[in-house]
């Protein structure tokens, strides 16, 4: 940009210089905490369950952030996001299962999945992003359901309802020892390598998405979200931008699916294509704060922590209050979904602009 920096920019203006920055100390602190916590998770929270949760948070950050590109930045409601997530998962799974469990097949699977996803996103976009938002949502719902049925029917390829369990490249296998002995009491094995692959990919993909939304292209998207007629009237063909972001978001979700597959060494309908996951993503983005990307980070972390630990927390509480009336029943671990629901309602009620919006003081 050749524009001169205005001399008289007030202090407040300087603080808000980039609409993309976290723009709040508290928010920045929380984000640093999450990223550092995830980076150190294997050492700070040892144990396979916590590592599983940490890895899941990582690939859900990518998945939710890519959904935010559509919902939060462009105002597109899509229910096909898990389909692209699934394409990534199945791409890696089928390739690693059918070819050899090595890096080449992983690369082939990833590439093939990306091609399929982007083409599908392009097709769906071209056919339906011209029409009203509700039709687009319906079409994505239909396509995603069809894909889920297809995946469970094509048993010879996908493993049907059972999914596919497969072996990953040797470096990432749990049996692989990368170092003798332990580091801070943690074995340096293939599992750890797999975790850091997932973590590093997450950071890379998240930064890429930040760059997309902070580019001029990203401003056009936000303009479209606010008022597509105005965006048209200053010379932007909004349908092109919508289709392109739909493809980018699909590609990101696909890569998240690959990460999920590599981490779980398994891909099935339940872990990638289920409508429950679609709802989870929607909740994560809404609770975290739409149109911020950072909301995806905070939302995914809170959501998955709650999903993983609320039940055992309630179990402990229920046991502690065993002698009292009502309370043990009310907080029985089986009722954890009820309480998760209550937490969601409360968070949407108290943070209508999401947690990030709240932290930014809006």
């Amino acid at each position, binding site marked *: *940009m050749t524009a001169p920096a205005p001399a*008289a*920019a007030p202090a407040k*203006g300087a603080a808000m210089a980039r609409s993309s920055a976290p723009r709040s100390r508290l928010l920045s602190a929380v984000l640093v905490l999450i990223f550092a916590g995830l980076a150190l998770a294997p050492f700070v929270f040892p144990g396979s369950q916590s590592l599983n949760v940490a890895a899941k948070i990582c690939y859900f950050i990518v998945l939710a952030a890519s959904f935010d590109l559509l919902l939060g930045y462009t105002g597109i409601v899509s229910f096909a996001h898990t389909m692209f997530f699934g394409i990534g998962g199945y791409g890696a799974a089928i390739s690693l299962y059918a070819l050899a469990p090595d890096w080449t097949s992983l690369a082939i699977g990833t590439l093939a999945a990306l091609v399929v996803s982007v083409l599908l996103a392009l097709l769906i976009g071209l056919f339906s992003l011209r029409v009203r938002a509700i039709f687009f949502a319906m079409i994505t719902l239909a396509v995603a359901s069809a894909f889920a049925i297809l995946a469970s029917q094509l048993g010879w390829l996908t493993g049907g309802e059972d999914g596919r369990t497969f072996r990953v490249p040797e470096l990432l296998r749990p049996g692989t020892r990368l170092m003798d002995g332990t580091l801070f009491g943690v074995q340096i094995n293939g599992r750890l390598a797999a975790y850091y692959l997932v973590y590093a990919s997450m950071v890379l993909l998240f930064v890429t998405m930040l760059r997309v939304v902070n580019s001029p292209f990203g401003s056009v998207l936000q*303009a479209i979200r606010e008022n597509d007629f105005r965006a048209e009237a*200053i*010379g932007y063909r909004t349908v092109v931008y919508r289709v392109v972001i739909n493809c980018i978001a699909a590609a990101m979700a696909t890569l998240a699916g690959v990460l999920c597959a590599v981490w779980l060494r398994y891909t099935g309908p339940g872990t990638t294509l289920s409508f429950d996951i679609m709802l989870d993503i929607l909740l994560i983005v809404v609770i975290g704060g739409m149109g911020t990307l950072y909301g995806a980070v905070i939302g995914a972390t809170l959501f998955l922590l709650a999903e993983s630990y609320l039940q055992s927390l309630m179990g402990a509480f229920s046991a502690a209050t065993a002698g009292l009336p009502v309370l043990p029943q009310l907080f029985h671990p089986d009722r954890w979904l009820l309480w998760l629901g209550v937490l969601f309602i409360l968070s949407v009620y108290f943070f209508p602009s999401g947690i990030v919006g709240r932290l930014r003081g809006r």
Partner: protein
Amino acid sequence: MPEAASGSAAAAGAICAPLLALAGVHTHIGPYHILHGVDLAVPRGGLTVLLGRNGAGKTTALRTIMGLWRASAGRIDFDGRPIAALPTSDIARAGIAYVPETMGIFSDLTVRENLVLAARQGAMDADRLRWLFGLFPAIERFWQLPAGTLSGGQKQMLSIARAIIEPRQLILVDEPTKGLAPAIIANMVAAFRELKATDTTILLVEQNFLVARALGDNVAVMEDGRIVHAGAMAELAEDRSLQQRLLGLSLDMHQ
């Protein structure tokens, strides 16, 4: 191209091909027939005012020119080229900027981002930006703030600034002074005067006859979806009975 600064020069300008010409334009919005065959010629250079009562179809005319409503019949030519069938974004890129009545800024984006969006070259010309800052000092002052935090007048100025961040052949402006304080209106009038001194042609929808008279070279009056009078502003400004006949009601409201 004649520098159409006075009424007589503008009248002379009407002889050569107009920059924008509407012929027999009809527009339907849903079941409503809004424009009933609009014939309008906007000569190159200078400022044409579109007057008329509420509901006469002025805003619909501008939106139809931009392709935001589709003309159901008739011809729209811009710079000798038919544009009625083009998508809105292509009409904008052909060189028409539109400042809607609702101050079409993007409130989530900063003032700077709003202007960068409109500067389709990707970069803003530093000299032109300085000129804009001179026209509308508030833009420089609130450069990095979200546009949604500006006051109504400042939003209107940003909206106009966005239309002229790059030279455009034609600017459509819909009631820029509506709801603004008199001091801001004066500022706006001065800005339009300066804009007229450049090569830009302006089509201005305005209800405030004083503003219209101060700025207009030509005038067209709409009623019930048709143009009922077109000519030089000077002629209308002097002819009280013509004003009475064409604008009776709206003039009373504003004086």
